[in-house]
């Protein structure tokens, strides 16, 4: 009788970036169990639904030698419910490390050894269209108001190829200036563009995780309040940027803009002190309403402004009042979180 081959089944239900950052652990697991079957389910969690987007992720995963197959979960028993990693996650610990800690917490799984410094994406063909180019992706989550996107577009705009959704591209151009958009049918195509490019620049998103997996030259816009993508310590290939000012792969950026992006999503920023005596968002004529959302209608009313104009006024006032937060060096607390994240990554 022929013995049936045993396949390790792993269940995912995170966002796509979470899945990409679980791959170092999946790779290490496959060295013990053989190629892994990656199963996907939609669970009622804080994450977006993944099944409807699986067709964009599957080709990349299926191209990997340590992945046996990728398919929707149909209720079968699994060996590792990787989607549960969130209970091991912290703001300063990389999503990759959180997956490892969750894995190690499952006593029924074999011992593995993970090298977060080594690439975990293989056999990705370099796309000729990206030769000499800089691939950029920026989503509207996990942003850093001091990241010098304006300067990057101004200086290197003609070399930029933007990947991501059409909406993200439009938003990026309206904020920072025009750049070329490449529609990619799936993440394998996006990975090929990254592999063929000189450099990737982006925020904490799944393409950034792919660039990390390729071990490609990259600059990452670090979200000050959740720097959880620092998989390995910085080296000659990667810069994690909390404050403006970096140089990598012949690309030099000296400082940030003096004006805050008016579309900056303030709702995602915990209130911070622009000055010692004025907690939260601040505008001098509305001293008793320091929180942004209560300040906004006051400024609109007092100055007879529309929402966008009032928003810009408050943001720019705060930027001037507290340049350390918006421009130049970030707050001490951000710096501490960043340092902690680097330390947790082994720097």
């Amino acid at each position: 009788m022929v013995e049936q081959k045993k396949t390790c089944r792993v269940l995912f239900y995170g966002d796509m970036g979470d899945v990409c950052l679980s791959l170092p652990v999946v790779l290490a697991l496959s060295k013990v169990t053989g190629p892994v079957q990656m199963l996907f389910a939609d669970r009622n969690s804080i994450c977006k639904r993944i099944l409807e987007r699986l067709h964009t992720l599957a080709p990349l995963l299926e191209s990997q030698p340590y992945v046996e197959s990728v398919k929707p979960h149909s209720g079968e028993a699994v060996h590792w419910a990787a989607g549960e990693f969130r209970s091991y996650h912290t703001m300063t610990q990389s999503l990759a490390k959180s997956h490892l800690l969750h894995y190690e917490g499952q006593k029924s799984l074999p011992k593995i050894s993970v090298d977060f410094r080594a690439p975990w994406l293989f056999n990705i063909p370099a796309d000729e269209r990206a030769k000499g180019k800089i691939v950029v992706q920026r989503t509207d989550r996990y942003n850093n108001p001091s990241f010098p996107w304006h300067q990057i577009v101004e200086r290197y705009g003609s070399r930029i190829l933007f990947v991501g959704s059409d909406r993200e591209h439009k938003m990026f151009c309206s904020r920072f200036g025009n750049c070329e958009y490449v529609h990619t049918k799936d993440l394998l195509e996006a990975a090929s563009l990254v592999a063929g490019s000189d450099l990737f620049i982006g925020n904490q998103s799944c393409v950034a995780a792919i660039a990390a997996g390729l071990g490609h030259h990259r600059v990452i816009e670090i979200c000050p309040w959740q720097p959880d993508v620092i998989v390995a310590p910085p080296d000659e290939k990667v810069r994690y940027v909390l404050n403006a000012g970096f140089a990598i792969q012949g690309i030099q950026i000296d400082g940030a803009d003096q004006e805050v992006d008016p579309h900056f999503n303030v709702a995602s920023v915990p209130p911070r002190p622009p000055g010692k005596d004025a907690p939260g968002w601040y505008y001098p004529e509305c001293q008793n309403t320091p929180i942004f959302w209560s300040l906004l209608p006051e400024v609109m009313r007092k100055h007879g402004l529309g929402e966008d104009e009032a928003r810009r006024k408050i943001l720019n006032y705060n930027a001037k009042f507290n340049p350390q937060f918006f421009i130049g060096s970030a707050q001490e607390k951000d710096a501490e979180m960043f340092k902690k994240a680097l330390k947790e990554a082994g720097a």
Partner: protein
Amino acid sequence: MTLGGYVVVRNGDSLDYSWREAVASLIPVCEEVVIADSDSTDGTKEAIELWMERESKIRYANFPWKNEKGVSHRGFVEWLNFAREQLSTDMQITLDADEVLSDSPECHAAVREAASKGECRFFHRLNFWRDPRSIIPDGHCCARRVARMGPANYVMCSDEPHHPGEVPLLDEGTYDDRLKIFHLGFLRKTDAFYRKANVVLHWWFGRGDPRLSAGEETGKKLHETECEFTHLLEPYYGYMPDSVQRWLSARGHATPSYIARLLTAPDPVIEIEPW
């Protein structure tokens, strides 16, 4: 080793405590759970008695309410230890009436592990402020690492700092961040919060807090009053037990994911097969 839990509560319903969630979160990991009332006048006692008819693990005890002013934490600690002394188990675990133990498998495993070894543990307490996405920064307002578990004959203490040698539970305790406690006290209904906060401050320190009195008079929510750490709040997007989400939802703090969950069928159980 057997594990017993206890929660002390007085007028839990009128003061809008999550005491039911606290007790319910202990039941799966404990052989028994003592609820130590203190002459409640709002029907909390009756609610406990009704619950006891359905849940054999729950036991009721009453610690006479003394209403002394300015007794510091002593009165609270006496009450805690009165509850602890009612246990018939080898080990103890306790929660405040506004705390809920995580129901994650990792947390339950960590509780059972500590109980089986007979060891003392510090828990990781998530102190929510303003909303279920904001955590009080470490070092402000209330402790993040709290001792909540150990042998049943070890005296339980308050969360105030103690000197080494004063409390064996603290000296021997080790911290395990799988042990998560959701501290919901600051997300209670505003009026209930102020009523309770002033009582406790007078009880413990013999005085009130002008910020609380101002808030009570103006009807401002707690987080809108003057507060030295609002700008340092840490975002939280981690796991949250269903019981916590239900409690929050009833207080206007429903997270979008919880609302989405209410509208969808429950997740199927994932069957795990050992490799």
